[in-house]
């Protein structure tokens, strides 16, 4: 199990993403793992989420090595940076890739900025 597996398991549990209420579309992840490719299809229906192991066609396909997927969902790299680096590719509707980032886990808690301000600046 790596971060990307946890991510899909978490999506199943969440079942709904309010920030995607305006969206109905399919997004597929093609996760490259050595010479194997794992497929995960996420169906978004007005914010309701369903995850399936499937390689059927999708409106947007995100293709990347497992390590890159792990880095993106855990926030170590941004999807756009991975794309510009040539470490990931998009097939289909680019806008859906942008919106799919709303599926990523959010850090819980309040304003990080407020904590920094209270501490008198960022930790050095």
């Amino acid at each position, binding site marked *: 199990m790596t971060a990307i597996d946890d991510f899909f398991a978490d999506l199943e549990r969440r079942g709904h993403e309010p920030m995607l209420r305006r969206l109905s579309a399919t997004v597929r992840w093609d996760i490259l793992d050595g010479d194997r490719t794992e497929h995960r299809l996420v169906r978004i229906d007005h914010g309701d989420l369903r995850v399936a192991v499937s390689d059927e066609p999708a409106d947007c396909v995100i293709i990347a090595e497992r390590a890159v997927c792990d880095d993106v969902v855990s926030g170590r790299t941004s999807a*756009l*940076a991975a794309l510009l680096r040539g470490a990931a590719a998009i097939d289909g509707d680019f806008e859906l890739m942008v919106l799919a980032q709303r599926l990523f886990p*959010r850090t819980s808690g309040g304003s990080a900025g407020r904590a*920094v301000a209270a501490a008198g600046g*960022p930790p050095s």
Partner: protein
Amino acid sequence: MSEDLVRILNGSTFVVCDRRGDIEASPTDPTGLFAFDTRFLSRWVLTVDDERLTALSTDDLQYFETRFFLVPGTGTVYVDAKTTVIRQRAVADGFLEQLTVLNHDVKPVELTIRIEAAADFADLFEVKDALQKKGSYTVEAVAGQLVMSYRRETFHRSTTVTSTQPAEVDEHGLTFTTHIEPHGAWHTELTVRAVVLGPGERPLKPTAAADDERREMLEDLERWLARAPRLTCDSDSLVATYRRSLIDLAALRFSPIIAGPHSLPAAGLPWFMTMFGRDSIFTSLQALPFAPELARTTLRVLGDWQGNRVDDFRDEDPGRILHEVRYGELSAFQERPHTPYYGTADATPLYVVLADEYERWTGDAELVRQYEQELRAALRWIDDYADLQGNGYVAYQRRNEETGLENQCWKDSWDGISYRDGRLPGFPRATCELQGYAYDAKMRGARLAREFWDDPAYADDLERAAADLKNRFNRDFWIEDGQYYALALDADGAWVDALSSNVGHLLWSGIVDADRAPAIAGHLLGPRLFSGWGVRTLAAGEARYNPIGYHNGTVWPFDNSFIAWGLRRYGFPVEAARIAAGNLDAADFYHGRLPEAFGGYERTLTKYPVEFPTACSPQAWSTGAPLLYLRTMLGLEPHGNHLVVEPALPVGIGRIELLDIPGRWGRVDAFGRGLVEVGTGAGGGSPTRLAAPVRRA
């Protein structure tokens, strides 16, 4: 940038070259072919029989196309007029160069024509900061094609050069051996492609045929100009400035990969040909009566990219609207945080302001319904993430100390925010205009909640919060002695007490108590702030005041256009007209293209507006300023399904007609006549208020 450089521009791709069309970039100057924030050509030099050429003339045909008339030889006295070389270059995803050599002699000639080409693939940030590359280069000359590539791990950028005439291709360029008959011509088309390659060598963005693109761009520019309202006016200068603005705005349109064929304004040439939250929003607001589709794309793209999680490196929070996106190598490897970078405190409230203003003009209820979640998240950000000290004010302090932005308001230079005595405050900083934007966002959010989201309770909450913010603001920021609002509150909640142009934005936002507006108008048109050309960023007499200080005394047309709008809102049409007249007079000195900023010297002293040395030009929000002046001077204001027209125009403008103004009313015309005496001197006199503050419907 030197005035001798030629800039050819198409959205985020641009060429900066000399008057011959040649590119010879040094590591630190911004000449070259740039796309995706990367220099895809750093050398592009044409010779005929090993001789460099001399420009006879250089003509901008369109913003994306320039023609160079050249003759061989570089001597200043003698030129061999038996040969003429014409280069015509159109910028697309790279560029298309039509090269024609004419032989004027009665004898045939054999000429060796050579193009030297090289690409350093510098990131625009590297050009700014002179950094070293970490990857490796390859150059291949195969099948009549020159392919220059740069690779760093999986990062791959490539420039290809092809020609319609057969060429001898080597690693440094293309050579043509030509025979031209008497009075004959030789012609070739060179295509330069800037390609971003993803896994499997697949281009990130599909490319069209170059000449198709050129034709499409021509048609698109014609459509763009035809769609805009028509201006006729006794002032030729204003007509010229208007046309220049429309064309420059067309040039600065930029289609980020996610917007398909739709475009939004990029910020400005040469450093900022990319998506900026603040600049795109302000420019879209200025252009609303003329090109509302810019606002639509801006709302969609900024909404889609809205911050989603807490990321200190990118200064990202949920709900935050981005500051800047970059596509270069440093961003790709996260040596810079711009994928995207979110460190701005104003774009998020301004996003809500734009959404509301857009609906009021266009009646596009669907968009504000579709983006309800994003707009709500933006409103939440103001309270949950931007109130850094828990005192109810929007403030900023970067979390990325290494490469993040220190000043996250529009005056973002290191010394842009200061006390009267010149000291710089610590962080967080709560600048005054941010509170105005937050107030306006809440008021406008309330209208959206009530009319489109069917949530009157939320609307009531927002209005209560806005009223409370206005009360507190007028108590905490007001400097009674000086009769103005402090520039900011510092980390201790004390006044940053300089007098600045920021107080003008407060009028625009509506946070100023009505009985204090005359004092603010008096300052804006008074001798310390008003130069005769416009309102200075910082008042004369403040310790850091300098008429050519970037944010400390120069006049910014964008800033002035919103100040004039604010004066109109509070019932000061004469003062608004004076500012508009001063700025539009200045535009005349720049052939209708207002620069980013010009010097804050007294108008009576310099007689002409002194350009700020390193200003970007064209720059989107300066380009938008004349458009907003037209709106302000004509008193255009949507009211329900109608457009109210209430002109207050400077005398010099004479008769004016703005025809076919698009909006929810279809298209309507506005007429006016210049009757307001504005004079040309610097500040003085007391403001005359003609009407009660204008309340939004």
